[in-house]
């Protein structure tokens, strides 16, 4: 049957993580196109609302490995379980979150199975591939689409000859959508002792300080984003003033984060989070494609930049040619004046 697998991550409070539900929503669409089923792979311990949270998003089969040693995540037992399941069930596609868990696990699985894996896909589609070497056409392959080479190009990658076709996708890239509230499926218990060895549990946890997400710019409706152009005294303090005034959050480009202007949790783009706010205001943001990949779905985009040719301007609804240090205070002033 060659179904689609989605490896599901577990949150600190023991629910299925959003990134996995997003992947399931995508997998459901791909599965409908391929006329196959969606299978979730869950390795955890007494996961809350397992069935009631997975089925409505379109999961047909839950493969559930339930063992106290499976949470918190460690590589080898999760690796052992998913590779054995893949060998038994031969899925054609296997998706992972591009998180610290998925990016730890998926490459090891791909290496073991000698399969192709594409990291940080921004889009997944089904399509055909002409194999010029063997002069054949392979139908219904997974197109794994991602920015490459520092984001200067967009590459469509395929794995014509290895199965499963594996890809990771970052949190917030795919849209989480209920498929059918009444959709139901089948729970298959994975006998953990037969799938793992005691020696797989080789990690000793000394301490863990994992917070519920500290900064949540993903859900923010208004984002004031600073680029490297804000690398002057009080640059981000000024942006914070604007964000607070408008009821939004601050975001940043990789260059701004690398320069230490703001914490990493606020980084938007291919190697940060993907956001879809109602309003995005870019201040001194040039708009490299990796950054745009994380914000180009914003409903309205304002670019404030002294450079009329900044790439961000091309996707902006409004471009203000000027210095953010002068424009932002005016935005704050006129917002206060007009919002009463």
């Amino acid at each position, binding site marked *: 049957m060659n179904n689609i697998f989605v490896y599901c991550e577990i949150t600190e409070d023991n629910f299925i993580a959003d990134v996995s539900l997003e992947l399931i929503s995508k997998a459901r669409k791909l599965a409908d196109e391929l006329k196959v089923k969606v299978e979730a792979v869950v390795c955890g311990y007494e996961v809350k609302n397992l069935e009631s949270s997975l089925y409505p998003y379109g999961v047909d089969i839950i493969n559930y490995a339930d063992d106290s040693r499976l949470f918190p995540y460690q*590589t080898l037992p999760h690796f052992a379980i998913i590779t054995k399941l893949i060998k038994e069930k031969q899925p054609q596609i296997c998706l992972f979150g591009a998180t610290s868990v998925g990016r730890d696990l998926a490459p090891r699985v791909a290496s073991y199975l000698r399969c192709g894996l594409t990291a940080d896909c921004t889009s997944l589609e089904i399509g055909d591939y002409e194999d010029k070497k063997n002069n054949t056409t392979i139908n219904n392959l997974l197109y794994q689409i991602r920015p490459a080479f520092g984001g200067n190009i967009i590459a469509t990658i395929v794995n014509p000859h290895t199965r499963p076709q594996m890809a990771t996708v970052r949190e917030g890239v795919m849209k989480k959508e209920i498929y059918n509230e009444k959709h139901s499926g089948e729970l298959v218990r994975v006998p953990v002792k037969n799938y793992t060895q005691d020696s797989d549990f080789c990690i000793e946890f000394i301490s863990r300080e994992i917070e519920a997400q500290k900064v949540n710019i993903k859900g923010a409706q208004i984002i004031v984003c600073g680029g490297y152009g804000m690398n002057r005294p009080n640059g981000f303090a000024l942006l914070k003033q604007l964000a607070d005034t408008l009821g939004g959050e601050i975001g940043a480009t990789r260059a701004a984060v690398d320069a230490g202007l703001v914490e990493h949790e606020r980084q938007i783009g291919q190697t940060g989070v993907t956001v879809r706010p109602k309003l995005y205001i870019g201040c001194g943001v040039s708009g490299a494609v990796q950054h745009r990949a994380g914000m180009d779905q914003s409903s309205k985009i304002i670019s404030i930049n002294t450079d009329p040719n900044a790439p961000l301007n091309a996707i902006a609804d409004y471009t203000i040619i000027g210095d953010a240090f002068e424009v932002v205070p*005016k935005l704050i002033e006129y917002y206060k004046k007009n919002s009463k």
Partner: protein
Amino acid sequence: MSLKIVVLAKQVPDTRNVGKDAMTAEGTVNRQALAAIFNPEDLNALEMALAIKDRKKDTEITIVTMGPDRAAEIVRDAMFRGADGGVVVSDRKLAGSDTLATSYAISQAVKKLGKVDIVFGGRQAIDGDTAQVGPQTAEKLGIPQITYAEELVDITDKDITIKRRLERGVETIKTNLPVLVTVHSSAPKARYYNAKRLMAYKNAEIKMFNAADIEAEDERLGLTGSPTKVKKIDSVVLTHKDNVTLEPTDANIDNLVKELINTHIIG
């Protein structure tokens, strides 16, 4: 007991400083226009290895890199900072390797070096950002992995304790050697060159391994050994929308804010 450490490193084009001449007129990448640098997170990895050598003087650090012959530059660079030596895996058969073929070649090279206690590497390289080669190399070496390392907490002859940087916090974990560790950019930055070492090694001969030296099966290398195929490359074309360009006058800003309020974009 002395520890044997391998640090995986890559010489990468500096994709963070892409200028206007970085793309050719045909829309392909102009590698010549980009400076070749030591992949930043591999420097964090080197520093973590050097921190172990600080504590245990008889630790031996060997750099393993794959690339064209000029990649020997980063081996010397690492030696200026404190590494003992290194090898470059270089062969035309390696051209076009994806992460699976790369990790195969690298793991073969590491195996040639004999018993290794710790393999360090950067979390990811800035020209690919995949973070795959580390875990894939660990699998091929048959050893556990610790990814996203931020701090070396403790090291003994038989185990290592590492603090990891995750999306929503940190965790400290301990495991037995041997292990492969990938290091995050939040870990300490690499120390600078040591002047004496710079003088001593600036012309150092760096050992080269070809495919035969690492006893690689040819069909697992290069394009043949790479299951991922590039179907299509699009150079990035910006999608134009109706764009309004404004001078930052008071009247313009006032009108813009009013429009955003009236259309319920801001409340």
